[in-house]
């Protein structure tokens, strides 16, 4: 009896708690606070924060692997986050299903009306690769312990696209997954703070006041055929990007075809919500003190910020260049939307545009580069998976 009482005491969190676990539980609470009070991407950061708390409870076994005897019978079951992480994140299923749902919510209309804006989505991906250079320099000079795969996974934060970042990190740098996902979603939430100063520094007031000509009407048929074209181009030129782009286009095709609305509706609602809950808990499971409480995390957070900033800048600069060569005027602000972070970055472009000219509604114009940025970062992800993994 005394022994049992002692066992029970030894089982308590208080007895077992390590300092690192306590800190990570505070990190989890910080994420929950940011999600609820500051509105930082709550759909992901709230479950991630809860997942971080749960996985760091000593003795609760949320990440415990199941144990089987020789005959294959279960001796002790695994933890919830073990099953979620290994079933849905390590396999890549959850990010792909989220991407399908996002595709079913995406309207390519503004981009189809003005395909040149795809160039802005391309230019803004420079943030990704500049960050890769930053990370390999930190690694090469022994400041931080980054491999090329780590550097690639960190760079993808600059893609401003959560599921893409999680998909790449789960393949190239699973140990850094927690920090990368947290950085990706945090900076996406900070887009309204990070982008405007850069956008204003690189443009004159006249440029920001430029009005753009109204977008042409895009037919239903174009919208239906477009996702198939993207899938075929991915198949032809970059099969390693085909999982991401293919599922994204599948979702979009379900939406635009108009013949499977019940599937499209489920992909946008019940399914993406279920997967989001699980994805959050699974990402949170990687927020262990060993993986998170080290210099590398600081590096990841700093490099992520750099990636966003450079991507914003190169997007704006490309838009200025396009404005010079284009027949119709192009407001350079919409280049910033090329980082993706849909639809936040497009809204920021609209807001900054309105500050310069109260009649200047850039939202629809910025949606073009915005969704182009999603394609751009999926292509960048494909190159990385092929280059580093192959």
């Amino acid at each position, binding site marked *: 009896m005394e022994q049992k009482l002692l066992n029970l005491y030894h089982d308590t969190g208080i007895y077992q708690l390590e300092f690192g676990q306590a800190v990570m539980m505070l990190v989890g609470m910080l994420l929950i606070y940011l999600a609820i009070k500051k509105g930082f991407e709550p759909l992901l950061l709230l479950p991630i924060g809860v997942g971080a708390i749960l996985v760091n409870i000593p003795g609760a076994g949320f990440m415990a692997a199941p144990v089987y005897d020789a005959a294959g019978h279960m001796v002790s079951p695994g933890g919830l986050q073990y099953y979620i992480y290994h079933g849905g994140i390590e396999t890549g299923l959850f990010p792909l299903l989220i991407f399908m749902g996002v595709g079913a919510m995406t309207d390519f209309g503004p*981009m*189809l009306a003005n*395909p*040149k804006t*795809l*160039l802005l*989505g*391309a230019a803004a*991906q*420079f943030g*990704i*690769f*500049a960050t*890769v*250079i930053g*990370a*390999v*320099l930190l*690694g*090469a000079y022994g400041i931080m312990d980054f*491999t*090329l795969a780590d*550097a*690639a996974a960190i760079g993808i934060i600059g893609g401003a696209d959560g599921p893409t970042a999680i998909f790449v990190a789960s393949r190239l740098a699973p140990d850094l997954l927690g920090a990368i996902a947290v950085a990706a979603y945090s900076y996406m939430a900070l887009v309204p703070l990070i982008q405007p100063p850069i956008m204003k520094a690189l443009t004159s007031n006249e440029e920001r006041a430029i009005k753009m000509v109204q977008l042409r009407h*895009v*037919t*239903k*048929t*174009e919208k*239906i*055929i*477009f996702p198939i*074209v*993207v899938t075929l*181009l991915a198949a032809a*030129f*970059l099969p390693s990007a085909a999982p991401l782009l293919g599922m994204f286009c599948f979702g979009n095709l379900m939406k635009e075809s*108009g*013949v*499977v*609305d*019940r599937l499209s*509706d489920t992909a946008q609602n019940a399914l993406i919500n279920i997967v989001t809950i699980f994805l959050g808990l699974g990402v949170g499971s990687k927020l262990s003190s060993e993986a998170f409480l080290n210099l590398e995390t600081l590096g990841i957070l700093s490099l992520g910020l750099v990636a966003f900033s450079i991507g914003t800048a190169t997007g704006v600069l490309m838009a200025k260049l396009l404005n010079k060569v284009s027949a119709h005027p192009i407001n350079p602000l919409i280049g910033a939307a090329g980082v993706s972070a849909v639809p936040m970055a497009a809204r920021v472009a609209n807001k900054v545009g309105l500050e310069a000219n109260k009649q200047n509604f850039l939202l629809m114009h910025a949606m073009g580069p915005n969704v*182009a940025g999603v*394609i*751009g970062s999926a*292509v*960048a992800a494909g*190159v*990385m998976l092929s*280059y*580093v993994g192959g």
Partner: protein
Amino acid sequence: MNELVSEGIGLMVLGMGFVFLFLVILIFATGYMSTLVNKLFPEAAQPAAKVPSAPVTANNTVDPQIVAAISAAIHQHRNR
């Protein structure tokens, strides 16, 4: 310059190159597709898209219950 850095630069060059290559091809493919579509099916696509599958109709039309509720509410409202 050590190997890691040169690999990183290689990734950058190849990566940005491929991103631009892909999106430029996509610009041409999209433009060509749009031209073709609008020549072959000038807005013919829209009526077809107006025929939704059965379950959708159910969702989009007004619920008979609601209509019943409205009539009831109007009656109640008038009798107040």
